[in-house]
């Protein structure tokens, strides 16, 4: 039993992490959300294998604690945007899983009507602003959401998520500078899963302590264990408070790992079995929370086995319902190009040539 687990066990009614306590319901909610994401991604992987999902499909297995811990720390009104590796985040935000799965399948009921696919998930009701396919593009966009909160003084914070590869893009630093200069309420979250496609962090970054990437712009940073949902929740809460209080932006580097290849087409031969196993079996965020809860007498193995069955069933239903949907109506080809289409001018809305 690790020190952390001992400390956690102290409170019978829940768990504690560095002085912050989590009640049983919260812990179950976090666990179930992580497990749901895990099973959802596995299902997506299967459907991709069956060629029912096309194009690129980037799964987040292993990174669930980042998605869920962040969401639990945030307000529903806070904004979030990320890269193409977006399934876990939008699910954690509480979007309809059937709509997300339908999107992956390119169906009419997809969360963006089948127009975006895996890389371009959006849910305006959940303040989830994408889903971007261009590495780093979401960072200046996140800057704009943060600016809007500053402009409206609406008390919201923007969680702008990028990867350890994306952080090298120039637009990121242009954004860091403006965010710091104007003290915008933004938490820049770096999902450091240690690889950008096949490129290990140290082959792409001169400074591999990514939380230090804001120093040149006077942005404070912290590195956290992205495999521990409690650590993520605790430190994201601090980071969000910092940003919300008007002190300006802050950087959070969540160290995590993706179990699968970069996308479904990546065999990931650039990593050793040992390395993957070390993270997958040694540091899995779901197994870890389960163990902590069991050790603290908050749940039993049986419970989690049951819960897993339940969730798998749920995910199967989600997949079945999504697959049952038709493709988008052909008329959708021409919608959503303009808010104010101009009739009688060329190119003509809804017409070829």
């Amino acid at each position, binding site marked *: 039993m690790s020190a952390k687990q001992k400390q956690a066990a102290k409170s019978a009614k829940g768990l504690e992490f560095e002085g912050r306590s989590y009640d049983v319901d919260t812990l179950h909610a976090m666990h179930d959300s992580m497990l749901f994401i895990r099973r959802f991604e596995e299902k997506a992987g299967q459907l991709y294998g069956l060629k029912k999902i096309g194009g690129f499909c980037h799964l987040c297995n292993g990174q669930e604690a980042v998605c869920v811990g962040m969401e639990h720390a945030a307000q529903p009104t806070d904004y979030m945007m990320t890269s193409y590796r977006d399934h876990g985040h939008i699910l954690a935000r509480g979007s309809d899983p059937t709509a997300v799965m339908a999107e992956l399948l390119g169906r009419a009921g997809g969360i963006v009507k089948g127009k975006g696919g895996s890389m371009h998930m959006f849910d305006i009701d959940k303040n989830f602003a994408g889903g971007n396919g261009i590495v780093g593009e979401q960072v200046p966009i996140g800057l704009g959401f943060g600016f809007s909160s500053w402009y409206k003084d609406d008390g919201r914070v923007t969680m702008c998520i990028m990867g350890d590869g994306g952080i090298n893009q120039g637009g990121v630093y242009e954004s860091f500078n403006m965010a710091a200069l104007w003290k915008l309420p933004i938490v820049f979250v770096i999902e450091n899963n240690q690889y950008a496609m096949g490129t290990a962090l140290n082959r792409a970054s001169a400074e591999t302590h990514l939380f230090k990437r804001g120093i040149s712009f006077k942005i404070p940073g912290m590195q956290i264990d992205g495999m521990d949902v409690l650590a993520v929740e605790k430190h994201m809460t601090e980071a969000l408070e910092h940003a919300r209080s008007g002190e300006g932006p802050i950087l959070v580097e969540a160290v995590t790992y993706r179990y699968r290849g970069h996308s479904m087409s990546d065999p990931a031969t650039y990593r050793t079995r040992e390395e993957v196993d070390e993270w997958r079996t040694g540091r899995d965020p779901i197994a870890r929370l389960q163990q902590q809860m069991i050790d603290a007498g908050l749940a039993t193995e049986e419970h989690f086995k049951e819960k897993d069955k339940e969730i798998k069933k749920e995910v199967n239903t989600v997949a079945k319902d999504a697959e049952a949907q038709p493709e988008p109506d052909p008329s959708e080809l021409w919608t959503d190009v303009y808010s104010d289409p101009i009739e009688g001018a*060329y190119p003509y809305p809804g017409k070829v040539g």
Partner: protein
Amino acid sequence: MKITYREALNQAMCEEMERDNRVFLMGEEVAEYNGAYKVSQGMLEKFGPKRVIDTPITELGFAGLGVGASMAGLRPIIEFMTWNFAILALDQIVNAAAKMKYMSGGQYSCPMVFRGAGGSAARVGSQHSQALENWMANVPGLKVVMPSNPADAKGLLKAAIRDNDTVCFIENEINYGDVGEVPDGEYIIPLGKADVKRPGKDVTIVAHSRMTGFALEAAAELAKQGIDAEVIDPRTIRPLDEATILGSVAKTNRCVVVEEGWRFAGIGAEISARIMEKGFDDLDAPVARVTGKDVPMAYAANLERMTLPSVAEIVEAARVVTNRA
């Protein structure tokens, strides 16, 4: 009231910012310096530092800021000191702003204006002298507007700011000082409508932005030579009011298209191709193009003059298509 093209743009922005407090102006030197070309003169004083904002020199970053702010419900006016610098920001314009509504299945949109001077100024060399409207006009999701006189500048900019899509509003530095009659207050020119700047029956000359003035000069010269030219300014490049152009060609049966930019896959190419597709039988002669020469812009005065389309070249082209050459 007679005011400059510059003042007309300023008026349009001020009126729209008074009307709608979601509208703000951001760019390099727009606030304390009153604009590199003084287009935003007095706006900082009028609206304060929250709505008129100087940025660092980071075009990609503040263009993206505008995209995000528009998604969050604001109505940004993002000024590029010149459109040459917008090349650094193109990813945010083309991959984010233009596609956002479609990608998000209609959930998010980017009602915003990217504006600034396009084309060549005077003697500023190759990196500061290029016309990119054809790149922007190529992209579904964007609208492209280019005023050629003060009244159009005001009426079109007001329409662009109210439009719920992303509008690339391309001005011309050399026109900033032009003076013209401009209606005060509420004056709006709908996007997607061309304007016949001079009626005529012998030949149609289509020209936008600074070239409209060149075309009108050419028309005056042609008149002396007994050729009655009709000059059409599309004003909105995308979407294009081709009906007005095709109608004119149906009448004149001859057409010259003028643009400052490079010829290959330019605006003139599109207009020529459209006339081919929709007005083929009306043509008594092939449509002619007068464009910038296919070279980067040189600094030397004589080379610069040679690079730009000239009134003489327009006159000559009109004579050719009317078989007077």
